[in-house]
């Protein structure tokens, strides 16, 4: 707070300048918020000044808006044009990492700053392009916020705004009002919104929701961590989202509901009887393994059929048999997870099957934000290559073609191109529906054989390693995470998987072998080409004294 100190005769101690800084991501409407803050100040007999650094304001970079205000005594105060360290009363962050940035810049100080931040995340480009999970840790920012600020008001204001059919500036304004940090009445804030004249009803709704949430946490209480904002009564997870779709937040859940494992699948009674028999086998597994096994079983049966589920459980039993129960049956749990993922490899049949399900049609409508009556044209983007075609042929025929490079090249020229398929039309849907129906022959197709050979080798390696080093065996299982994607991406994933496991001979027998394998896997997920992985492999080669024979095929 900037106090006119008492050594200056004639200055009124009650008068002080209140400073409000807002950090936003370009395009979040920081300008609107700034104008509102100036308006509400002037409405209450204050003088206010706002500044901003525009230029990149629309273009997704971090931007700062700044307002200073004080009671109007008929004379113009000298306001600062930008926030400075230790001189900010209210810091509004329109996104969680922007709150972190504000703290880093010293705009949030324990003696004076009220930090108002939306808990949602907008991932920066650097977070999105990582092949694994490159997202920054929200927990650390939340923790720093508690330490750095005088008061903290944090909840998901983006979600609140979208659910009211408005934009985040409304809920930020509501949180500012509700925090009570500005000496203005709720009515005057609302009058400001009303006077702005655009989307008033929705803005007021978002404002109100945020006001209440912020006010709830007043009096020293901390509002964070956030509780989910009250959903509208009667709004089911299947209803279209307002504003036409998904809120701008990377943590938006698919439908707000966790998979209900107790719910029985729908289907023919005969199939259900077999399902129940299969599911009852899960009870024979050690308790810690059951949840993952139940999820895995549902996944593989959904992917193929009940027999596939049986195969899954048989294989899982092998892992359990080698598990001594250490670390909460970590080995078996990991097997349950990655075995299911490995068995459910992504092939053309899988994609076609998923794209033609009734649940999928409903989900598209929900995400786009339209009801069942709306006319919606849905275009799918496929780019099949000869590899996919061969994989979908009977194994013998597929291999025969693959053995003839010139034929492969000739065919690929005719096959490999982008194909746009309309799944709202009968020809397009019909084609994918038939492809999806090929799953009954899947076991005889080339791709299945290739995948099963790979699964067998990998699983055998883990089972054989288990008696010697169970932790290492668990990590071997977890390396399955590296195999994902389609076409080139899939090939790259396989290559990373091979490169990581190529370190096993160097690591075998070491006490920290499991730890190193985990580090290798994490390195492999850091960048696209596997540069970090190569570095990590070199490190291992250097301390094990072996020459680096793991140079990667690129």
């Amino acid at each position, binding site marked *: 707070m900037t106090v006119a100190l008492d050594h200056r005769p004639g200055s009124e101690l009650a008068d002080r300048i209140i400073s409000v800084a807002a950090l936003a991501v370009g395009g979040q409407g920081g300008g609107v918020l700034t104008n509102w803050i100036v308006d509400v100040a002037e409405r209450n007999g204050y003088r206010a000044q706002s500044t901003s650094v525009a230029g990149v304001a629309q273009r997704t970079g971090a931007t700062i808006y700044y307002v200073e205000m004080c009671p109007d005594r008929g004379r113009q105060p000298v306001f600062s044009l930008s926030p400075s360290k230790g001189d900010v009363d209210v810091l509004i962050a329109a996104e969680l*990492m922007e709150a972190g940035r504000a703290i880093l810049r010293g705009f949030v100080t324990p003696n004076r700053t009220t930090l108002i931040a939306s808990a949602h995340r907008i991932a920066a480009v650097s977070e999105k392009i990582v092949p694994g999970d490159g997202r920054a840790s929200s927990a650390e920012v939340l923790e720093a916020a508690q330490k750095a600020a005088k008061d903290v008001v944090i909840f998901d204001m983006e979600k609140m705004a979208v659910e009211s059919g408005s934009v985040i500036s409304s809920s930020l304004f509501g949180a500012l009002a509700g925090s009570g940090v500005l000496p203005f009445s709720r009515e005057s804030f609302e009058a400001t919104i009303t006077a702005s004249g655009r989307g008033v009803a929705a803005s007021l709704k978002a404002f109100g929701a945020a006001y209440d949430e912020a006010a709830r946490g007043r009096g020293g209480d901390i509002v964070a961590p956030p509780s989910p904002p009250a959903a509208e009564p009667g709004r089911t997870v299947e209803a279209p989202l307002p504003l036409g779709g998904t809120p701008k937040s990377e943590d938006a859940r698919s439908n707000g509901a966790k998979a209900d494992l107790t719910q029985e699948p729908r289907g023919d009674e005969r199939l259900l009887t077999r399902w129940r028999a299969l599911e009852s086998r899960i009870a024979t597994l050690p308790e810690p393994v059951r949840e993952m096994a139940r999820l895995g079983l549902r996944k593989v049966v959904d992917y193929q059929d009940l027999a596939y589920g049986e195969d899954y459980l048989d294989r899982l039993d092998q892992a359990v048999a080698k598990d001594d129960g250490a670390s909460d049956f970590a080995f078996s749990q990991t097997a349950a997870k990655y075995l299911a993922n490995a068995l459910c490899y992504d092939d053309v049949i899988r994609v076609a099957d998923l794209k033609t399900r009734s649940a999928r049609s409903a989900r598209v409508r929900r995400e786009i934000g339209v009801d069942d009556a709306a006319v919606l044209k849905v275009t799918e983007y496929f780019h099949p290559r000869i590899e996919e075609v061969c994989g979908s042929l009977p194994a013998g025929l597929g291999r025969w073609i693959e053995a003839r490079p010139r034929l492969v090249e000739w065919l690929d020229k005719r096959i490999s191109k982008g194909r746009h398929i309309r799944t709202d039309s009968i020809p397009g849907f019909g084609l994918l529906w038939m492809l999806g129906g090929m799953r009954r022959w899947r076991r005889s197709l080339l791709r299945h054989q290739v995948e099963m050979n790979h699964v067998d080798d990998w699983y055998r390696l883990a089972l054989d390693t288990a008696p010697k080093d169970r932790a290492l065996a668990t990590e071997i299982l977890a390396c399955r995470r590296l195999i994902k994607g389609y076409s080139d991406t899939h090939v790259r994933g396989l290559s990373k998987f091979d490169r990581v496991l190529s370190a096993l001979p160097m690591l075998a027998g070491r006490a920290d072998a499991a730890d190193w394998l985990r580090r290798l896997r994490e390195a492999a997920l850091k960048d696209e080409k596997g540069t970090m992985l190569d570095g990590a492999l070199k490190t291992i080669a250097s301390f094990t004294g072996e020459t680096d024979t793991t140079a990667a095929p690129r």
Partner: protein
Amino acid sequence: MAERSFAKEVEKLRLGDGAEFSGEGILAITKALLQCGVGYVGGYQGAPISHLMDVLADAQDILGELGVHFEASASEATATAMLAASVHYPIRGACTYKSTVGTNVASDALANLASGGVTGGALIIVGEDYGEGSSIMQERSHAFAMKSQVWLLDPRPNLPSIVKTVEDGFELSEISNTPVMLQVRIKSCHVHGKFVAKDNKRPAMTVADALDSPRRDLGRIVLPPASFNHEKEKIEKRWPAAVGFIRERKINEIFGSSTGKIGLVLQGGMYNGVIRALQRLGLADIYGDTEVPLYVLNAVYPLIDVEFLEFCEGKDSVLLIEEGQPNYIEQAFGALLYKNGGTTRLLGKGYLPVAGEYTGDVMLAGIGDFLRDHAPSMLPDPVRAPNRPSEETDIGPELAKVVPGRPPGFCTGCPERPIFAATKLVEEELGSHHIASDIGCHLFSIMPPFELGATTMGYGLGPASASAFNSPDAKRRSISFVGDGGFWHNGLTSSIGNAVFNQNDGVIVIVDNYYSAATGGQDILSSRATNKSKSTKHPITEAVKGMGVKWVRHLDRTYDVTKMQATLKEALTTEESGPKVIVASSECMLNRQRREKPIAAKAIKGGERVVTPRFGVDEDICTGDHACMRLSGCPSLSVKTLDDPLRDDPVAAIDHTCVGCGNCGEVADAAVLCPSFYRADRVHNPSGAEKFSARTSKRLIAWLQRRRESRQLVFSEAAA
């Protein structure tokens, strides 16, 4: 059509005597120009003065009523050359551009203008793009004022001061026959404030009057021997006239106590920051009243020797607060004190950093240290010897590792994104190339995820900056980029003409988004929109061919990544010699949305058939590899966590801000990514036949779905 419409604000320009004007700093300057009876205005857009150009463009009616000529100049050189209208005629003229990039471009014209001098007041408003938020290299405009000997005003950053400086500036220019530069910093351009308006004035002589009775004076033309006389005249006549006016008009201000052992000397633009520091040190109240003597230089060139020496009288030490480097003012005052046998110590850089913006923290620390050393008795006890440890928390280093950088990037739906996606794909195939970039939105290509581009040398100079990379021994060609804005600003001659003349073999991509987009979406020669006061729709391809380029390809939809990729590959491998020019055209999505959204909304309301596209991702098909994002970086394409313990990595997700540009689908095609993307076109107000056909398809599809689902187990949550 510019990014922001000022149709509403423009009405403020009509305010008359005594009315209160409330708005942005840059608008206040515009109003001040009209109050001063300006006869013509020009300039080139660019932050932070783009809005001044946009306001004037939207204010054509008012300007017409007053007989004021307005031009959107082709470049800053053009804008400055335009001030030639004030050389022989008593017409007030003004031009504006961002500094120092604009000043660089303008300096040829500026030197000539300054040499001959002016009769009518000539004001150059430079938007100083220095410090946080700046998008350019950091230099000072001060040097340009010194080398051309034009006067530089740097007013205190509040609206009344800025408006008064415009008025003073014209008078100063006329009295001293010298162009005057008015420097406004980024934040004061965008500061919102108030001032009391005056009536607008018609120019005493309009440009029409001048055209009807032409004048010339050989003595004002820059050619020997007149030019040698100009050099003397600058020192013998113009300088003393300027110094006299600045003193008499009290352009520079003195605040605080008239006695005291110390004082602060500062650029006008630093005033609010200095006062804030004094407020925080307990030495000023909220109105800026202070005991500390302040000498505020609203005119930073020329400096008024007598004023400074008077200020220093009886003082032991003064601190000079001068932002940026080199410290021209400090050097000048230091020499002045020495020559005059002054005993006052002049301090400046040292207490304050040599380089970089003088932020609140810097001022507080610098001024605080100076006062602690030289006038500790002035400081209140808690400031001089604080009992409490400072409020520093230990959060910094740990948190710094967590918070990701967030540089600006391409907007949602930007048509330039697919150009660089295609370039990245071509490089994956043919290997990496030397890529020269240019000024403009397309420069965001240097950032992740594209990371393309090695240099940027100036507006329109992308291809010119690759001109050395032209060798018969090389196996690869250089690629250079230039935007349509840069192309018309300077690129046509300096880059394209140069490449033709020197038989450069490189590939030149001209990114045409229909506007000068990075500066706020102003129209340029090749814009497709009809502009009632400007001539548009001049194709870039014609201009390029006219320059003599033989190999020209035009893509009128940049979103076609496959075609873009093929064209680039052809340009890089063709046997043809000479520059290979690809013009990649698609409208800036910001402008397009602003234009089309209201029209579409109205049409939907009016019952017309409208199709709105959007993209989505099938989360159960996406494997969470994020290969798509490494070719996009679109703000609406992000990652989300699934509530599925079987999944490790977040999957791709598209939010409601998607504008359905098509890049996701095209990239998935061109790069052979995954099939998880879909486009959903919503048909508003479909025709009866369309509804019937959709219904029929839906029924059939539902039947097929039921048929399949009845033969197997359905786990709804697994599919949902």
